[in-house]
């Protein structure tokens, strides 16, 4: 399937909330958003996949625990194994961890409260499908909104993640200082987003889809979607 405009599938699970917002962001950034339904086993030939934010199945048991078994996920997993760009935002990140595509897990924010706030992220690597155009060390502003965003991992996982440079973003100050004062949810090592070894699978708690339109928020999400569309293009071409 070749197209001049990269086609990005956005999966809607029961309880997905930011699926419309993710589709809008893809379109605004020049891609073509394609709705994917949790119960379909078909990715409709998309060039990249986004698992959006929300509360899939209410997140009552554990965030993402149930969504990960949705029929569409089999296709998503093999799409990722074939190297396809796969982005999990907030609840989508939690689904990727539950599905074992990314290391670690999310528990409740250390404040035990939901937090909706614009935060600064320090880019840790350009080796990922959403940081292609960025330089490690630079900071971007993007909102967070979650109650269970505290990323944790087993000691072994943590060693690997840091050794292999799998951290994509850390919560930081505007100037890139990473410390407890700039860690909104208590995440281990201020981790806000991580990738798999190949870099085609990325999950992050902040919401880049809410940081594209300057009329309603910051614009730190623009380069991330630009990068994702670029990766999708490459996949589509190659």
């Amino acid at each position, binding site marked *: 399937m070749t197209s001049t405009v990269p086609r990005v599938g956005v999966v809607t699970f029961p309880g997905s909330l930011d699926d419309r917002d993710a589709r809008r962001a893809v379109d605004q950034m020049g891609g073509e958003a394609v709705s994917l339904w949790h119960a379909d086993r078909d990715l409709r030939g998309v060039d990249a996949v986004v698992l959006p934010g929300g509360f899939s*199945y*209410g997140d*009552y*048991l554990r965030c993402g625990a*149930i969504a990960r*078994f949705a029929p569409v996920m089999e296709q998503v997993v093999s799409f990722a194994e074939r190297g396809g760009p796969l982005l999990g935002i907030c609840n989508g990140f939690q689904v990727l961890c539950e599905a074992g595509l990314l290391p670690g897990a999310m528990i409740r924010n250390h404040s035990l409260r939901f937090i909706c706030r614009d935060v600064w992220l320090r880019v840790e690597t350009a080796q990922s499908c959403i940081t292609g155009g960025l330089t490690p060390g630079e900071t971007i502003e993007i909102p967070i909104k979650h109650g269970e965003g505290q990323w944790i991992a087993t000691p072994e996982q943590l060693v690997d993640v840091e050794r292999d440079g799998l951290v994509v973003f850390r919560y930081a100050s505007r100037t890139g200082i990473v410390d407890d004062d700039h860690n909104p949810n208590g995440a281990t090592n201020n981790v806000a987003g991580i990738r798999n070894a190949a870099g085609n699978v990325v999950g992050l708690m902040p919401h880049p889809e809410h940081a594209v339109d300057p009329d309603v928020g910051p614009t730190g999400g623009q380069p991330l979607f630009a990068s994702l569309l670029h990766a999708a293009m490459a996949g589509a071409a190659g």
Partner: protein
Amino acid sequence: MTTFTFEVLVTLKEGLSDPQGKAVESALPSLGWTNVRHVRVGKHIKLDVEADDEAGALDQVRGMAVRLLSNPVIEDYQVLEVAPR
């Protein structure tokens, strides 16, 4: 002073709907388990209390269960002592 370990189970009162339980129950069939009913999800709290004797400790844990660990309006609780290791 001795240390006693207790477990407190906090469960929704019968008759109240349990969204968590419902979510689990409706997820199980797609994993191949169609034979599960009446799923109820509650809290399990484990803690150590310093006290002179077991009875006193138990009393205190009951107090915590009522005042902090559960909301008697919607939840029941149950205190179990864990055999000392």
